[in-house]
């Protein structure tokens, strides 16, 4: 299926309600030619993973500012593995201390984008790292 736009789920797990960054990224990726499913704030790991399964996305982008990333993000990558979504690329953005990044990477988060990342950088990273579909 050549030419299928890359499909990205943007979700905010947990309780913080600050979604400006997530919305700006969603809009920016739209302008970069991605199909962006936006689920909004206050999502549980279960809601995010079933949305990823139903939408069959290539990327799950998680925006989190609350500090609960070490709890919620490994839970999401674990549930994705349980669902057989091992080929989906999981990325995170928001306020995540540098020392936590290796922990998240160990848990299956491919990349962490902190404040100051440009939309172009995110788009380039996704284009380079989404696994092509064999069908």
């Amino acid at each position, binding site marked *: *299926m050549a030419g*299928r*736009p890359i499909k990205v789920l943007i979700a905010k797990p947990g309780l913080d309600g600050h979604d400006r960054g997530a919305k700006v990224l*969603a*809009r920016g*990726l*739209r*302008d*970069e*030619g*991605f*199909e*962006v*499913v*936006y*689920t*909004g704030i206050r*999502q*549980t790991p*279960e*809601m*995010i993973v*079933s*949305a990823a*399964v*139903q*939408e*069959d996305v290539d990327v799950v982008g998680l925006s989190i500012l609350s500090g609960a990333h070490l709890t919620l993000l490994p839970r999401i990558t674990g549930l994705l593995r349980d*669902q*057989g*979504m091992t080929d989906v690329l999981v990325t995170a953005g928001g306020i995540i201390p540098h020392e936590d990044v290796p922990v998240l990477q160990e848990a299956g988060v491919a990349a962490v984008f902190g404040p100051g990342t440009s939309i172009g950088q995110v788009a380039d990273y996704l284009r380079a790292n989404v696994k092509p*579909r*064999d*069908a």
Partner: protein
Amino acid sequence: MTGLAVGDQGRALAAAARAGDRRALGRLLTEVEGRSPAARAALVELYPLAGGAHLVGITGPPGAGKSTLVTALVAAARAQGRSVAVVAIDPSSPITGGAILGDRVRMQQHAADDGVFIRSMATRGHAGGLAVATVDAAAVLDACGFGLVLIETVGTGQGEVEVAALADTTVVVQAPEMGDEVQALKAGLLEVADIVAVTKADRPGADQAAASLRAMLTVGAQHDRVAGDRPRPRRPEVLLVSAVGGTGVVELLAAIDRRTPTAEDSASGRGNAARVRAEAQLVGLVMERVRDRLSGVAARDGLAEAVRAVAAHESDPYTTAERLLAGIMVTSHE
């Protein structure tokens, strides 16, 4: 990958999806959206198993409350223990091809419910192909046991009725601030409605909007019986709903259910909506295949040269089109 292997893959996805594998269903819908050979193989298996579901189109202007109403209908149907699928369509950018698929924002309360399956689709600039992809997606969900399939269209203006018209039942969603009575007199969207849902009934003016819609939509009804075979616009019922207040939603679902195609309709293929849908799908598929083959012919015989010759007025487009069509017919025998 060979054609056979792709066919096997499509059939395997279809079997797994029917067995309740949500991941397989999600993947299969991706194939359907991409109009892939695997999807064709799957649809050949699944189409005969579909036909039992009630396909309901939900359409209306942007911001009228379609997604909110769909969410409320899903909740009402779930309260009755029914499984529900939603196909939510949002527009692709004609410039970048990107899209924001934002209908799920209102529907996420149902995301983790196994009796609900929600899929967003972008329009992807399909010329007429969106209808085919949508009907195929609905058929897949139907064959996988979802008895109620809600198809939420893009926010429409006055003329885009194509996708909504393919459902068994079409609900046109109008907000109270829809404009004056003249809006209800105009041709287009309201003519394909079986049900008009006036949303945001908790707001001032909703009663008046419903009343003026009822009055205007029944104008000319007395002529229907003498119209003979002349096509007539539908005469929709007008219902007031407030998804936020929870009023009118159960009544709307009941009105939708009253329009469920009968088993005889499905078995005979005589239901009017089923026939309209089948015709649109067949014509759409033939057009899709012709476009595919035209690309093949273009690659082999140089469409670019034909385009150049017509643009330069060296050839006329009619003779050139006939020649391309002849090339397609040859290809189809290969």
